[in-house]
């Protein structure tokens, strides 16, 4: 049996239902522009499965709404995530899953930066550099084995 990298992760309570968004007055107004915000990004990624546990990124506290910054006006998104342990070898895979999820769901006008939260991974710089190198990402997505793993993690994303 393969040994898990983090055998005993802390599990957090996930918010129930499809969206954790609170109702806003403008939601009833069909004429108001529906800007993309941090909540919407969080809803897209929180139910992605962790590559090694049958748990979601939200349940493992890998993603949090407060760690997402969105500027709809400037077409920019920054998603910071927190690996469960500082030597997590799955960090780049988790980041890739988040990137692919957003790539598939968001309008192409958005520039997405993904990074591990400062101080939460021992190879922070290397992981961030790889996750934000578009050539490496493009090549990774042409690797059918890797793509299959990513798709498995994304199968639970709702």
């Amino acid at each position: 049996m393969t040994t898990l990298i983090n055998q005993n992760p802390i599990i957090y309570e996930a918010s129930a239902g499809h969206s954790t968004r609170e109702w806003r007055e403008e939601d009833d107004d069909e004429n108001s522009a529906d800007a993309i915000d941090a909540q919407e990004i969080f809803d897209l990624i929180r139910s992605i499965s962790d590559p090694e546990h049958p748990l979601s990124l939200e349940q493992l506290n890998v993603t949090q709404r407060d760690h997402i910054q969105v500027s709809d006006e400037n077409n920019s998104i920054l998603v910071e995530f927190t690996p469960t342990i500082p030597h997590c070898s799955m960090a780049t895979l988790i980041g890739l899953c988040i990137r692919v999820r957003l790539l598939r769901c968001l309008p192409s006008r958005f520039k997405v930066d993904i990074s591990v939260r400062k101080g939460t991974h021992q190879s922070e710089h290397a992981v961030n550099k790889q996750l934000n190198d578009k050539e490496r990402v493009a090549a990774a997505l042409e690797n059918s084995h890797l793509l299959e793993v990513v798709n498995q993690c994304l199968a639970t994303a709702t």
Partner: protein
Amino acid sequence: MPRLEQLAELTGHEDRVWCATWHPTKPILATCSGDKTVRIWQATNAQDPSKWQCTNVLEGGHKRTIRSVAWSPDGRQLATGSFDATTGIWERDEDENGDYECVATLEGHENETKSIAWSNSGALLATCSRDKSVWIWEVEEDNDFECLSVLQEHTQDVKMVAWHPTEELLASASYDDTIKIWKDDDDDWYCSDTLQGHESTVWAIDFAPSGDQIVSASADQTLKIWKRFPPGNPLGIVTPRRGEPVWKCVATVAGQHERCIYSVSWSKAHGLIASAGADNTIRLFEAIDARPEAPGVLVEIVAVAEAKEAHGTSDINSVAWYPSETHGDWLASGGDDGSVRIWRLVQ
């Protein structure tokens, strides 16, 4: 004020365009894409650069993204570098129907080939890869290519290779944040200098028309100009390696591009530098000697023109000036939107 005017938008690629390269002598452009094809575009009438047609689609040569494309100096052959780790050599069949066929496939790299470049004489071909190596190939008769050297001094992916415009001297840019200069000593290739200064991946490099300067583009959002100082230079710049020139950074362009810079082109016709990247903007710069009494020592970079949202909200992966004076004011660009655009510099 000079400005860039869009002459044409060429559509047909079905995925992002990674690289656009002009034919060395004719108004013909080759572009390659994530759709695994190369497209050849030709101005239908050289007097009217607003009308272009796709004359050829090179398909079936590669199983994965074609990352880069390069014409041989005589324009007879095209080389393609692909994520499938191989380099393809293509030739146009003039007798038959004018189709391009793949006449050779160069294998050896362990994974993605990122860039290829022909030496000025056409006698050598350089390739580089995510496997951290640069390969030098000798072009022999009958479409035979012999690997002369495998250079493994970069510590990370090698993103691009570029030959000096007249000498057999190669520059390579890497994910390890450096540029390396490679030279040949009786068929023995060695690294003669390592250019350090960028704070992130160096995506692209190009030589100045004279060959004495290099411009580099980086994920650190800056451009740098590097100048070659020979031993015994009148300025007294120390050349630490016996008999070897040293390359020094003489200018840094910061605060212009707001995201990664993916491509840079130094015009051989008029000397302007074009750069573009993930901030959707093409920028033009002029490199001016800040101290004319000591040429090249301190270079001042002046922003000349810009084209914002040149490919809408998409990243721009490639910019290329037309290589000669015939149409020296033409610039080609390729972007994540899958389009290729032709621009004209209007003075």
